């Protein structure tokens, strides 16, 4: 990889995931470098002249505000993540909390989905900024200033998944908040954005939508089953 490729990659990697004009920034920096080289400037000196990538990024993101990804895509991504979680919530957590006094046996069963969810959602979000569902839809969690999400932020924004009533309250934020964010995203200082730093293949998104639709259908069946069972 050439010096200018490394420089450009360093700049693009530091930009917020949803930052626009990546191709333009790369093309402009490359043109500037090549003009310097054609003018007789040595490669190392040309890179030095371009400056510190962090300073450049700071200038580029001045005045930047993140744009939340669409609610529909975030819902679909959640449905993909919930492929294991949701059936257990519907079959175990909801009924046990609605028609039983929670015993220690019920409690361990009721909180089982949370432990599973921790594995399939939190760990990938901490490591890569995207859970499996978000990865399929090209979404990413980041700080409000575009920074990489921190461990405590991932935990705070996902703590409501601990119990089904909590995540219904948490999700209500999507309906009335500016930026269509969950309430826990406000507390954590995070936002889910469309990741423009990578191209998401169409087949991946199609696969995500198929899983999400099947999950939605199963969710509706589950809710009907529970309501019939209780009533």
């Amino acid at each position: 990889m050439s010096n200018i490729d490394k420089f450009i990659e360093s700049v693009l990697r530091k930009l917020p995931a949803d930052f626009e004009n990546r191709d333009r920034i790369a093309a402009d920096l490359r043109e500037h470098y090549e003009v310097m080289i054609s003018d007789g400037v040595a490669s190392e000196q040309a890179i030095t002249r371009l400056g510190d990538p962090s300073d450049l990024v700071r200038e580029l993101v001045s005045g930047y505000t993140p744009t939340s990804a669409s609610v529909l895509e975030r819902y679909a991504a959640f449905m993909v993540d919930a492929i294991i979680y949701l059936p257990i919530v519907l079959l175990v957590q909801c009924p046990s909390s609605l028609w039983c006094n929670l015993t220690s046996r019920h409690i361990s069963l009721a909180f089982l989905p949370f432990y599973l969810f921790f594995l399939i959602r939190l760990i990938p979000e901490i490591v890569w900024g995207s859970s499996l569902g978000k990865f399929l839809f090209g979404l990413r969690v980041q700080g409000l200033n575009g920074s990489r999400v921190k461990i405590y932020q991932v935990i705070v924004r996902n703590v409501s998944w601990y119990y089904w009533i909590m995540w219904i309250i948490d999700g209500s934020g999507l309906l009335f908040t500016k930026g269509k964010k969950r309430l826990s995203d406000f507390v954590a200082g995070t936002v889910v954005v469309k990741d423009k730093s990578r191209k998401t293949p169409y087949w991946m998104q199609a696969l995500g939508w198929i899983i999400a639709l099947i999950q939605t259908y199963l969710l509706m069946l589950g809710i009907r089953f529970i309501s019939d069972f209780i009533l």
Partner: protein
Amino acid sequence: MTLDIWYSDGGCLETELKRGVLNVVILKLLQGHQRYGYEIVSHLDSIGGGHLSIKDGTLYPILYRLESKGLISHHWEAPERGVPRKYYAITESGAAELSRQIDIWNEFSETVSGILNDGEAMS
């Protein structure tokens, strides 16, 4: 002791002034001349006596802001020999804005110079 502590981001007076005037200086450089990025930075180096020098990369955020406001435009030119270059030119609204900014600067600098250089003004 310097006055750097007056500026919240740790910058100094020269940095703050440079940040404030670069937009208008770049517009002025493009008035009547279309220039490519490296040429603009080289001019800033040579005409400003070092006061207006910037790292080459940081020119582009300024150009993007000027372009997003419709004050400058760009086009590519591929010479017969050499690498293709992206030329920037001032627009009509850019020229009008430049004229307005020059008036503001003249009035502002005259006022501040009057205060700073005239001891009577403060008494």
